[in-house]
């Protein structure tokens, strides 16, 4: 019975696995300086940005792929990937510049209607497919408050000074191997600018979709929140089911000024590969926020259920005095998925405070690691960190690991770390079953109960989605 169920789930589970049949301009596979130049010219970029890309590319070539993750990363042939795919490009340039109805339909199907009148209430969306932003909704409405929300390509064209000032300021291209790669070939992502003392009146969100075969997606997102500003930003991601791995190497940079607050939430549901571990997205991401201003706030909330491999540490540099950072994470791995995820909290300012709540859930033959660094600089008087890392195991073939690192250089700092590992027991399942609750539903209840401290941090609609996603991701995990 268990086998039948797993089979059924493998077939039904990933409901975003369809492909869109749309004309897509894809550049030839391979990566060299000419490709970097080609991407830059396709986007009509200024010289300084091309320079930035070329420097990054040069640096990337000099580096080796890191191996320190608790991951078995398949070999990535960087010459066998296409670095730019544009599904909005018309076959014939004479056609009017309208969005292909197929693209609109795709996002409808994903539950992200791009017609403003159909849109989810109170949410503006930037929809990115492959390398290009298809549409950004409510741009005009947000512009009334001088809020900028557009694709990063558009921002480079329309607000070059803002982009130039902040791009690479939080994650320099030399930061790591994948950051260098992204800086060389990044395509679309979102740009958000919240002016001083402005509260963004709606949730902003970006939906990333990979569609084209054998292409990498190199998302680049930049959020700047000026003094006293506030924004809540969400990202969602899905991809078709394909037998080969697909690469998604992203950078997200956030700058938060005095008394400003940014909430960044992710519901990551990239294709995780099949139940035998074939295919799936390699999600190799650098996300970091700079809490530059006094009393600034940043929270990362992530629900990670997809991807064959997830390797990312949404981090915070608490530079401003009294700044506060939070990291809430639920990472689910099933079948052959691998995740090595966590955060870095770097306390530089005085009385800075960070909270880390991480909940790992492992099932099948998956490997799930929490890796976190709490660093307190010598001037960070009175800095505080609280970390709690829990692991929940379903079955006996999966792994859960915790790698907490601490580097405290100020003796007035308080750093606390707690960790637990638990298992869903046969007795708990029997108890639920005896009350008429099926095993799948029982696992869903238990897992959602376990993860609720994190789920509750998500905006309402996403919390409901995330709950469903958790249950679906683990269906068949206990049989």
């Amino acid at each position, binding site marked *: 019975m268990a086998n039948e169920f797993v089979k059924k789930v493998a077939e039904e589970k990933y409901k975003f696995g369809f492909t869109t049949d749309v004309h897509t301009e894809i550049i030839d596979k391979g990566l060299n300086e000419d490709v970097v130049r080609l991407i830059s010219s396709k986007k009509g970029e200024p010289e300084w940005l091309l320079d930035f890309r070329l420097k990054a590319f040069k640096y990337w070539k000099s580096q080796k792929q890191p191996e320190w993750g608790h991951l078995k990363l398949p070999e990535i042939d960087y010459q066998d990937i296409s670095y730019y795919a544009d599904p909005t490009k018309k076959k014939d340039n004479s056609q009017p510049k309208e969005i292909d109805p197929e693209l609109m339909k795709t996002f409808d199907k994903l539950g992200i209607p791009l017609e403003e009148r159909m849109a989810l209430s109170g949410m503006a969306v930037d929809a990115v497919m492959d390398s290009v932003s298809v549409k950004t909704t409510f741009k005009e409405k947000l512009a009334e408050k001088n809020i900028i929300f557009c694709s990063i390509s558009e921002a480079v064209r329309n607000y070059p000074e803002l982009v130039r000032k902040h791009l690479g300021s939080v994650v320099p291209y030399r930061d790591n191997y994948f950051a260098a790669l992204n800086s060389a070939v990044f395509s679309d992502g979102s740009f958000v600018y919240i002016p001083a003392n402005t509260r963004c009146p709606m949730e902003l969100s970006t939906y990333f979709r990979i569609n084209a075969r054998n292409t990498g997606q190199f998302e680049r997102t930049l959020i700047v929140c000026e003094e006293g500003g506030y924004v809540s930003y969400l990202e969602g991601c899905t991809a078709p089911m394909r037998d080969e791995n697909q690469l998604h190497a992203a950078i997200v940079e956030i700058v938060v000024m005095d008394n400003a607050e940014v909430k960044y939430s992710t519901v990551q549901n990239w294709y995780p590969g099949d139940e035998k571990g074939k295919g799936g997205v390699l999600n190799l991401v650098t996300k970091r926020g700079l809490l530059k201003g006094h009393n600034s706030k940043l929270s990362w909330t992530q629900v990670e259920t997809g991807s064959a491999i997830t390797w990312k540490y949404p981090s915070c540099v608490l530079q401003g005095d009294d700044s506060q950072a939070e990291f809430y994470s639920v990472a689910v791995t099933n079948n052959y998925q691998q995740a090595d995820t966590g955060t870095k909290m770097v306390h530089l300012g005085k009385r800075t405070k960070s909270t880390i709540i991480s909940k790992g859930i492992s099932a099948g033959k998956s490997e799930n690691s929490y890796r976190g660094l709490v660093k307190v600089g010598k001037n960070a008087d009175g800095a505080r960190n609280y970390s709690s890392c829990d692991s929940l195991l379903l079955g006996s073939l999966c792994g859960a690991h915790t790698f907490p690192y601490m580097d405290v250089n100020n003796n007035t700092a308080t750093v606390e770390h707690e960790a637990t590992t638990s298992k869903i027991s046969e007795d708990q399942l029997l*108890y*639920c*079953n005896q*009350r008429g609750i*099926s095993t799948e539903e029982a696992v869903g*209840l238990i897992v959602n109960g*376990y993860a609720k401290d994190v789920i509750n941090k998500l905006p309402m609609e996403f919390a409901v989605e995330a709950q469903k996603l958790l249950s679906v991701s683990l269906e068949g995990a206990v049989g």
Partner: protein
Amino acid sequence: MLEIKNLHAIVAEKEILKGVDLTVNDGEIHALMGTNGAGKSTLSKVIVGDPSYQVTEGSITFNGADLLSMNTEERANAGIFMSFQQPIEIPGVSMANFLKAAVNAKRKSQGLEPMKASEFLSMMRERRKLVEMDNKLINRSVNEGFSGGERKRNEIFQMAMLEPTFCILDETDSGLDVDALRIVAEGFNKLRKPDTSAIIITHYQRLLDYIKPDFVHVLLDGKIVKTGGPELARQIEDNGFDWIKQSI
């Protein structure tokens, strides 16, 4: 009606039940007594469908249906309820969410829509009073931080919510003080409908003072060796099991 015929069952390759025959008609209360390890809990686990027990021979029918071909939740939704000897904690899952899932699973099996939230809450409020269950416990996670007595009370509260037609009380009296025992037993009696039947597993007469059995069975070494009326329980209370062992 529950009908058990020549039931043999093993756990971890050891035969525990060695041919049990037992018929429980609608509305009947059967007490099941026996020494530790005689197979009383095994019998109840086999009836509810604990997958760690394997039936090697015999049959169980429930209202004419082959119980052994149904999985645990199907049996529960058909009306079988067990008050666990050691109710387990489920951290993170509130009693309310747990019971809502259980009530709605049963409704779904009957082709009914999920119960409205307001209706469900008032049902909880009303049923809670039957077993004098503290409202604070309802807001906690399932059995988390409950005392032994509170757990037993919680079992009967769940029974009140799920309205089973066939109940197994597996040592529900153990761990209860005199007052709590009375409340739990009276709660059970109030909940009982004329056709509700039950198997009550106990070591003591005191529970049977409240819940009057129609039959008392003695299970020894995997078999029912003696059946009598309520007086049998009193004889066991006074004299233990040795005299029964000697007579077989």
